[in-house]
């Protein structure tokens, strides 16, 4: 039994044309038993910055709360919103501090830079190694399946509606091939000045 698959879960973020999508499943399980169907794994850090986390549920909550602490103080001190790239550094640093007793999570960041208005996605491993690809990031117990779906469906410069379809289909079909994820899904589409949240009708098994 791996600690990373104890609770199950999946998270995905995709880049579009001046927009980003971030989505997760809603399952909260304890090994085989599904205990909750409303455990969202995506946390808004501010209006234009969203953090998704998969892995051990307890660490998901702890890390998101600690990051919110940092970000709030940052915004009060510097009197401006944090940029996604800087947030990635904060996250990476926070995780590496626990290099020899890590948080069992795999985070995904999706945000729009407050100055340049460019979309930004990134992910890390559990000790904070950052990755900033141009297309999509996936984490969770069905990461392999998600990679497959994304490679097949993603194309550059999608508009928000098309991006929503792409992201939803990739997530839904990947979690259907994984026992540890599923039981509903939520998708956030983030554009400049607007965030649309939708819950997906998924297989509840």
């Amino acid at each position: 039994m791996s600690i990373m698959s104890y609770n199950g879960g999946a998270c995905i973020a995709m880049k579009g044309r001046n927009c980003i999508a971030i989505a997760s499943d809603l399952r909260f399980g304890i090994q085989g038993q599904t205990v909750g169907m409303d455990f969202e794994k995506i946390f808004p850090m501010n209006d234009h910055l969203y953090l998704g986390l998969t892995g051990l549920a307890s660490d998901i909550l702890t890390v998101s709360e600690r990051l919110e602490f940092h970000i709030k103080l940052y915004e009060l001190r510097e009197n401006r919103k944090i940029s996604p790239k800087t947030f990635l550094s904060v996250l990476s640093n926070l995780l590496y501090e626990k290099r020899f007793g890590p948080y069992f999570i795999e985070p995904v960041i999706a945000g729009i830079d407050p100055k340049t208005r460019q979309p930004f996605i990134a992910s890390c491993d559990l000790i904070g190694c950052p990755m900033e690809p141009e297309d999509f990031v996936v984490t969770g117990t069905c990461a392999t399946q998600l990679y497959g779906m994304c490679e097949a469906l993603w194309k550059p410069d999608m508009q928000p509606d098309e991006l929503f379809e792409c992201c939803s289909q990739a997530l839904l079909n990947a979690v259907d091939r994984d026992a540890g994820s599923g039981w509903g899904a939520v998708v956030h589409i983030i554009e400049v000045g607007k965030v649309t949240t939708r819950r997906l009708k998924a297989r509840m098994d």
Partner: protein
Amino acid sequence: MSRRYDSRTTIFSPEGRLYQVEYAMEAIGHAGTCLGILGKDGVVLAAEKRSVHKLLDDVFTSEKIYTLDTNIACSVAGITSDANVLVTDLQRTAQRYKLSYQKNIPVEQLVIHLCDIKQAYTQYGGMRPFGISVLYMGWDEHYGFQLYMSDPSGNYGGWKGTCIGNNSQAAISMLKQEYDEDGTTIADALRLAIKVLSKTLDTNKLTSERVEMATLTREDGKTKITILSDKVVDKLCAEFEEEKAKLEAERKEKEKATPKRK
């Protein structure tokens, strides 16, 4: 005379006074005025901007009013560097509470935390007290809208209307007369603040160059802290000037109407 008991904060004078604490309050009496007014639907803080030097680079959005958390803001009078240190501490304390309890810190608890720190500097350590008084405005689910004032001794109180800094006594007596216990709304509070400030500040005309204001209200179940823009402040000042001129004109009319006695 009692100068021999001045130099240490941590000893009483024969008359039972803590001179350093009192001297700290003296220092605040020379600083820019801040006043706070509690309304039914929100709280207002208004502060006098002291550093109107031409060469000063106006980078900061607010000189005397600071946001401490999403539900609390404060205004400071006294030694600015002391204020910076304590405001940073207040911000960190509020976030640490949020991290532990996943709730916004209740206003009074934040005030108490800072007052305990201030009190420590009057009792042990041998360091001088912080030379600042703070006005806090906030909202929490336990007591709604609140206004607090703390001073260098570490004492604090909840107020409906109060003032710190230069000419604060005059402002407080004016507030005592003019404050309406039952029906002060935010709009009333803003007008009253301008009225009081124009008396206590030594200028003829009040503009956004000399005064900055902030309000704390609730909208859609969320607390909203707004630092009023220069335009809005100027508008309020202009409205006050109009009112004043109107009252002056009415008074002159009355004087003309009543015949002068020989």
